[in-house]
């Protein structure tokens, strides 16, 4: 039986990312959000967050 049994090798591949990649992804995500909200000069976004930027301490606006 054991000979007839096809040994199935179930290979479990981990889909979890490495620690470094995860940290990098978090940094990229935070960096993009931060730039979009507080630093981009794209007019529609700039105009929307304009008062927020002026209410901050170290955010250049004009």
């Amino acid at each position, binding site marked *: 039986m054991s000979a007839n049994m096809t040994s199935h090798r179930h290979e479990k591949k981990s889909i979890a990312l490495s620690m470094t990649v995860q940290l990098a992804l978090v940094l990229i995500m935070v960096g993009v959000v931060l730039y979009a909200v507080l630093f981009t*000069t794209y007019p529609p976004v700039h105009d929307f967050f304009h008062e927020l930027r002026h209410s901050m301490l170290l955010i250049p606006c004009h």
Partner: protein
Amino acid sequence: MSNEQRVTRDEGRVRWGAAVMLVLCMAGAASAARIEFRSEPDFSAIEPVHHSGNAPARYTLSVVDDAGRPIPVARVKYTLLSPPVNAFFTSDFPIVEGTTLMEGDAFLADGTLSWEYLTPIRGDYRLVVDATPGFGAAAFAPVHDEIRYHVNEKASNIRNGVLLMVILFGVGFVSGYIIVRPRTIRPAIALVVLALVSDSAMPPPASAHGGHEHHEVAAAPAPGGVTKGDSAQLALSFDPPSGTVGKLVTIRAVATDPDSKPLANVRFTVRLHHLEDDKDMYTSTFVAPDGTFTWRNQFFDGAEHQIIVTAAPVESGAFTPVTAAYTMDVEAICPPDNVVARMWTFHMAIVVAGMACGAFATRRSRRSAAEGGI
């Protein structure tokens, strides 16, 4: 030497001595002037503009004698310089840093010049003043003074800035803690939740900097050129005709009679009105003995401004006041890339620091747990 010659020589010496004493007295009186500069509210209470509805502060420049009395009919040339560029941190108007905000040459009919002004940014301002006697004024030695005053950042801005740093550090700390520790939950899902939570914790944006809102100024007169009144006319000219943030615009006003002859003793009232925010950025009154005044100003906000100038006689009844206006486009300048990069990097460094602390905290707790299990 005869007695007559001796008397004549003595009289001459007395006269010379009297003349020398008179000159010395005049020199002593001529060096008595000094410059005073004050604000209302006090300098420590003035905050930058920030589109927040702050009322302009009122500044008063005086040329006074030793007793503190304003010297009538003095002439002052003054230059207001913005705070210098900071090597590490920026204000919200980086283009304005290290520039000249205004230059003026005015006669102080009563020894004082006042203006109301919305200050653009925090920092150390410098007002350079040169005062000389005006025509018909009591003589005084020219005075040069450099006045420095500090404008504090708004307390709410400091609070918001610190809050942002705390949030960024917290995001970094939690993400570092979760990612480095042994996985009990899916980190990706946790981080997405974390990002959404941190984003919602940010202060909500206030009303937008609308690019096409129009605010009507009540009774706004016709713009530019020569405005003709009943008994006087007022010509405004601007160089350049449109403003740019960081650069001065020369504003010149000439008041003449209907025959284009300059009027004497004209009191000009100048008002700079921010059309988008519907508020006055600057207001002042200049006295021009020759009917002409020239003033240079930097429009530090890239939005349309209306410049309203009224010419009125110093002595009432000499002519009918006339008002002219001009709508000036001001080109906004984006912050320099190096400034944006520097500040973005600074804030990201806070996130990285948080991550490092979170990772360190995880490893430390893991080590403690491992030692406890031995």
